[in-house]
């Protein structure tokens, strides 16, 4: 019964996006840690995930959103500007990390907000 409260598509999608933010932080940690490794190719959350998520959100089915699994993939769009074949750029990576932290903060606030609204609906204060 109470499950229905936590099954709204928006809430489930935000939770999924939070998972993505955590996974992307892991990818960025991996990229920055291999900043000086020859032939390392930068990784990121697989670009197909975004399309899958937007499709699942359009369908409005929470179980379809919940079963999505974000994965890491080698970033094929990254071009190496260096002679050692490494595709990581320090500035890009730090910018992406900052952006990711903001996304993470926004998503935690959204989740906190929906929980607060739920509490308001139950207790009235």
């Amino acid at each position, binding site marked *: 019964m109470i499950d229905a409260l936590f099954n709204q598509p928006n809430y489930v999608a935000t939770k999924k996006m*939070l998972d993505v*933010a*955590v*996974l992307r*932080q*892991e*990818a*960025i*940690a*991996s990229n*920055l*840690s*291999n*900043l*000086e*490794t*020859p032939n*390392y190719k930068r*990784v990121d959350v697989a670009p197909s995930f975004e399309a899958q998520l937007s499709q699942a959100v359009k369908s409005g089915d929470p179980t379809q959103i919940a079963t999505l*699994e974000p*994965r*890491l*993939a*080698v970033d094929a769009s990254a071009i190496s500007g260096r002679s050692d074949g490494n595709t990581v750029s*320090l500035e890009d*990576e*730090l910018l992406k*990390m*900052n952006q*990711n*932290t903001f996304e*993470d*903060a926004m998503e*935690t606030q959204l*989740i*906190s907000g929906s*929980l*607060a609204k739920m509490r308001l609906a139950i207790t009235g204060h």
Partner: protein
Amino acid sequence: MINLLTGINSTSAALDAERTRMDVISQNIANVNTTHGPDGKPYQRQQVVFETVLRAQQNSDLSAQEVHVARIEKDSRPPRMIYMPGHPDANDKGMVATPDINIHQEMADLIASSRTYEANLAVAKNARSMAMSALSIGKH
């Protein structure tokens, strides 16, 4: 153990690797004029070789990767011969073999290494702030 700080394993591996690299660079700079090592030969420049290591992760074809120091290699460049008769390590022609170390190259490497170190510290800081915001879910 639950992992609150995401990617912290990669970050700590990188900090460790960069620290080793800085140690080796400082050793090179310190020995720029060493003509007589424990083996009786002039000091040979050393450099670290990094390699990526895959970290096992469940339900994923590709996981975050760590960096490790694969090995510390000796530079095979021949020593630089300098004319210094009277030097205890001079040969019969008065030439002394000194390490072929370019101090500018070492300094550039040192700066690159410390920038990488700083970037990884920034990741650790960010992971921490993300963990803190996750812990505050539901508070008001």
